């Protein structure tokens, strides 16, 4: 329970931000034997919080990056149709009933695969982005996203599910059609960011569902254990 008392919501996110940044710097999520269900519950909560943190971070990053791309990409109601090439980026879109019926394994695997691939694409952005400041932010975001992938892997292993084959899924075709022109390249970047944003929204819902299905998980965030 957070006593906000009129403060802007950013203050509570600041706490999460520090916590999650600390968590992301852990080398790996240790698999727990013994109290595995308890561990899974905490891992799920941690992963959920990480998606929220990343979504918050992405908002700033996307704003900066789209400004760098320039109009029309940074216009608020820019709503282009999807081109066939953009479908290489894994999409969060899913039929409502299908999404409801996903098993825990399938749900986690979809998240894992998606973020692994999105991470690859994002890293591809790194070298070309405009200012040093922007490249630095992208780099930081990539590290956080890496932390998310590791966190999801941790949840899967603590629940006993095998990791999906290969971190990048099907490897990017070597002649991965580099965009024929500058505008289409920018379109690719636009869709990448959009899909990333949508995945983070979806993951919050995915992990909410998982939280409920892993009893008797203790899903409170323990700030004091981390020294904050």
């Amino acid at each position, binding site marked *: *329970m*957070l*006593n*906000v*008392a*009129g403060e802007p919501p950013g203050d*509570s996110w600041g706490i999460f931000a520090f916590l999650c940044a600390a968590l992301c710097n852990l080398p790996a999520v240790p698999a727990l034997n013994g109290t595995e269900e308890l561990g899974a519950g905490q891992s799920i909560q941690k992963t959920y919080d990480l998606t*929220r943190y990343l979504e918050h971070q992405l908002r700033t990053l996307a704003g900066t990056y789209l400004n760098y791309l320039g109009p029309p990409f940074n216009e608020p*109601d820019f*709503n282009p*149709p*999807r081109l066939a090439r953009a479908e290489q980026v894994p*999409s*969060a*879109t*899913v*039929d*409502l009933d299908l*999404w*409801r019926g996903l098993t825990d394994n399938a749900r986690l695997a979809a998240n894992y695969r998606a973020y692994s691939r999105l991470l690859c694409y994002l890293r591809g952005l790194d070298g070309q982005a405009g200012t040093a400041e922007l490249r630095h932010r992208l780099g930081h975001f990539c590290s956080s996203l890496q932390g998310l992938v590791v966190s999801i892997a941790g949840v899967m292993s603590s629940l006993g599910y095998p990791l999906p084959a290969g971190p990048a899924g099907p490897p990017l075709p070597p002649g991965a059609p580099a965009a024929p022109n500058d505008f289409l390249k920018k379109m690719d970047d636009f*869709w990448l960011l*959009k*899909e990333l944003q*949508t*995945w983070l*929204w*979806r993951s*919050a*819902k995915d992990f*909410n*569902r998982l939280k*409920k299905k892993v009893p008797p998980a203790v899903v409170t965030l323990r700030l004091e254990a981390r020294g904050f």
Partner: protein
Amino acid sequence: MANPVPSACCVVLAAVVVVYAQRHSQQDSHIQYERVGADVTMKCGSMDWDAAVTWTANGTDIDDSHLNGSYLILKNVDLTQSGQYSCYEGSSWHLKYQTYLRVGTPPKEPVLMCRSNNYPKGFYCSWHLPSPTYIPNSFNISVIHGTREMVCEKDIFPKNRCHIRYLQLFLTVKYKVTLTVTNALGKNSTSLTFDEFAIVKPDPPESVVAKPVPNNPRRLEVAWQNPSSWPDPESFPLKFFLRYRPLILDQWQHVELLDGTSHTITDAYAGKEYIIQVAAKDNDIGTWSDWSVAVHATPWTEEPKHLTTEAQVTETTSASTSYFVPPPTTKICDWWAVRPWQCVGQLDWSWLLMVSSLFSEYAPSWGHERWGWVLGGHGGLRGSDVVGKGDTKQAVGEEHWV
């Protein structure tokens, strides 16, 4: 075997009735729409310009000054001139022409709102015109998602509302909703473009209840329920925002609650009536609901209703009538003391300063210099309370709330 002659008569009779009705309805059903401020010319059906006719408006004869031959001229029409206009041939008084004149305006840009209060089931859009046109309007709504057009099912009630079921979730492409309003005098339209997530706004929490907690003069227990329109709070949990203040103050206290549908307020001012409201939001997406219906509650107090009795009873030494007499050993003399006059021997200036600064913080308009300090922390000032103004102490009349 049915007799053919009567049935033939029935058929002929029916045909005559139909033709007669059609002829009359053709005369009656003619409607003419005109803009406010326009000039209207009505012709008397097929009559010649120079025929002698009489026009009536809603049964009242119209003065010849409005006539140009057999044409009726209405200049700069206004809303009051709507009605039934009839034209009768001069001498025979045959009805030659009849029309309903409806004066109105073309539609202004409509106001459109779309919202999902039942995520992830779907969303609804509702609309209205910012100002009336005074003539019938028809609305057409189109919802486009990417390349696909979706059908928005019109609701029977309320009117001017339609809803769409989501088939897919977590879409990257936005929805574009276009509303076109058309009437006989013109048309207008407006559009909204939005992401699936941006329009999520639950209905306010329901059944908000606030109760005092027995033997706790500073607590109030508040409980509520998820809005009934939210279909799946298990998978799409809501978080809540509670606000409360005593009626006498303007400043709200806020608490954000990430789980559960109840909360105990522990810092209520003793004896003050509180107003409490709750709002809801999806945990992750969308915006806050409107505030719920306000509930009122007052924390539990141990005061009896008639205080003059208490003042008299404390003077008696009898222990048997004493539920008014406070237990002699337990005196709560912290700064929130309910009966601070018992603590007179223990009061010090720091206590008084704290109380007075508390009141001046929350009621700066009262003016610290005017009211000094108030000894007593419950209800209004009662007969036995004492108000200090500077150095003089005066007893205040009963129930005089400063």
